């Protein structure tokens, strides 16, 4: 007996949030629809809520001291490992970006290779930041005085819709030892959650990078006013709205910055804090 070969029904992925190293549904039970350019349904990513944001901040705070305490060599290797994992899944990212965004397949491919190379670039910064940003200071007196840069703590990121900006923002924040809560807008949710799968297999400690998909308009004001967030990268937010976020962030004097795209240690150093230590010298 022969049966006519039927077209295979492919297995679709359930989209969740990435909090504390685990994939969790939004506590709100809400989702939003992402469609392809032609309107075909692609996915129902989770529409994260204020409570999800708070949970992610709790996870990021808990992970921060351990991540900052890891040696720079160790952090560099983990960032490099992310590049390795990304490389292995490059085609998946290319097709997802091409499918969900308005850019061509060729441009999507270029973004993905760029993203991989940037992880390599950022990985190399982990043990060079002090050499570039620190100083020994020749003070007038019997003191040994030096300045080093330290991570600020928990950094929220309102990501631009472009995948490469998403990568830049995250890598720049975590390489120095910050932990992050990344707010991902719209259709970027699809490659962003695939990226969460990359992170889950990259030896990255749980809670260092937390990814929430949903609405920046809804989540960014909560992030700006959250008292346990130290810095906020608002590159993905329209400049007209920067003012209100900065007003909310003033309550704990959050370090709030927006960047144009591109690789620069400026972006890394913006979320670091300089510490100067005086040691008295004597016998």
């Amino acid at each position, binding site marked *: 007996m022969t049966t006519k070969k039927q077209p295979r029904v492919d297995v679709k992925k359930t989209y969740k949030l990435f909090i504390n190293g685990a994939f969790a549904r939004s506590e709100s039970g809400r989702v939003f629809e992402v469609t392809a350019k032609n309107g075909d349904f692609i996915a129902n990513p989770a529409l994260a809520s204020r409570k999800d944001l708070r949970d992610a901040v709790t996870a990021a705070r808990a992970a921060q001291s351990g991540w900052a305490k890891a040696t720079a060599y160790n952090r560099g290797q983990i960032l490099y490992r992310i590049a390795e994992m990304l490389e292995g899944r490059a085609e998946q990212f290319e097709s997802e970006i091409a499918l969900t965004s308005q850019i061509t397949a060729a441009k999507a491919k270029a973004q993905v290779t760029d993203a991989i190379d940037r992880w390599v670039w950022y990985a190399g910064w982990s043990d060079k930041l002090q050499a*570039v*940003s620190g*100083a020994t*200071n*020749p*003070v*007038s*007196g019997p*003191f040994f*005085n030096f*300045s080093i840069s330290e991570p*600020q703590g928990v950094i929220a990121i309102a990501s631009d819709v472009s995948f490469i900006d998403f990568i830049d923002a995250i890598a720049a924040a975590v390489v120095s030892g910050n932990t992050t809560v990344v707010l991902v807008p719209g259709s970027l949710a699809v490659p962003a959650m695939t990226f969460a799968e990359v992170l889950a297999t990259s030896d990255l400690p749980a809670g260092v990078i937390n990814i929430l998909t949903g609405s920046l308009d809804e989540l960014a004001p909560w992030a700006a006013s959250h008292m346990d967030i*130290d810095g906020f990268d608002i*590159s993905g937010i329209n*400049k007209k709205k*920067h*003012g*209100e*976020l*900065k*007003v909310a*962030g*003033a*309550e*704990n*004097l959050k*370090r709030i*910055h*927006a*960047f*144009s795209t591109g690789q*620069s240690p*400026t*972006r890394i*150093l*913006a979320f670091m*804090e*300089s*510490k*100067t*230590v*005086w*040691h*008295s010298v004597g016998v």
Partner: protein
Amino acid sequence: MTFEYAPAPESRAIVSIKPKYGHFINGSFVAGKKHFPTINPATEEVLSLISLGGVSDVDKAVAAAQKAYTKSWSKLSGKERGKYLYRIARILQERAREFAVLETLDNGKPIRETRDIDIPLVAAHFFYHAGWADKLDYAGLGHSPKAYGVAGQIIPWNFPLLMLAWKVAPALATGNTVVLKPAETTSLTALLFAEVCQQAQLPDGVVNIVTGDGSTGAAIVNHPGIHKIAFTGSTEVGKKIARAIAATDKKATLELGGKGANIVFDDAPVDEAVEGIVNGIFFNQGHVCCAGSRLILQESIAEEVIEKLKVRMSKIRVGDPLDKNTDLGAINSKEQLVKIKELSAIGDAEGAQRWSPQCNLPDKGFWFAPTIFTGVTQANRIAQEEIFGPVLSVLTFRTPQEAIDKANNTPFGLSAGIWSEKGSRIFWASQHLKAGVIWANTFNKFDPASPFGGYKESGWGREGGKHGLAAYLKNGKETGAK
């Protein structure tokens, strides 16, 4: 037998104070419309009348600063700019005694401090930054970093001329021009500095000084012609400034409040630590944002340290700031004295034990005896809020980790001190303290080459050293905005 100190007053003949001052705009003094008195807080004597700057005065000053920026200052090479700063440094050294006496009269701080600390550091700041003016390409901020244009600078009353130097020297070295507002109660040395600018033949409009109160400061913050704000003062006002400029492209450095932890481990050199504790909280009447206002003592040595501290505190000489023997001068204003008294009363009410040595405070002026509170808990307001006076809160700890946890349990993050003879412990503690400036086996040391500024709600950015230049240059790390 006790030895008494005979009075050793510094002569005030070296200063001549005018009965009334205007603003310093475009190289000359311009009469103000309204005036308010500035007094000597040690005697309540009116020293002079200071102009109350309004929006139109700030407008004129900004216009002068803009013109100076485009017509002269931005066209000068770094080498030439630097030479003006060197001139200013030298004139400040020449007139150091005059500045020291005037500062002591207007601020109330002891002549020993203005003469040996404030004014020498002021000259050092100009000398240090003068040398940067033609070396900015090497500051790690990219090639040819650019000035912002006009910097608006608002400074506090605790180190009047020193804060002016911290603001003006890097601004000029990096090629910016300046509109500066001194604090309401301490304008006199800034106005004397205007004379120094004239003697140095600094081009007109490069430095403009508008005196006044909070409304004058707000006019500077909100002025559309100003691209960069530098403020030192309270966290409360710092947050207001952050909100005021939120929807603008203005950049800001904010040096705000603190509640510095001074940690003494059981292996500390106790006598040195006691000197450091005294310097940490009683230097400048405790009117220091980075003061070591929380003493965190290891339990096993707490009793010994407190006993020795009380003995040392009873040797502190409180009184005439112009007397060269005086350690603790006058509280800068009646308003500040009220705040110190209020928070100290709250310390009593919360159950902490207050102690002050016997001391005879003068009848006139504003005075507060050096004070410690023991038995303070972390939740007490005197352990959380900045008192900004000669009042020390003492807490204890058992394990090093507990010391760090207590030290970091504050929204501030400006300074901290560590006392220990064990090098590895000092480095461990300094790694874990969330503070921008940490002193190990010393306290309250300042230098133009050493960056200063805080974590968390103690502010944004650094002043001094290589790091301080970034605040005044567009390729600095605060740029890159979309």
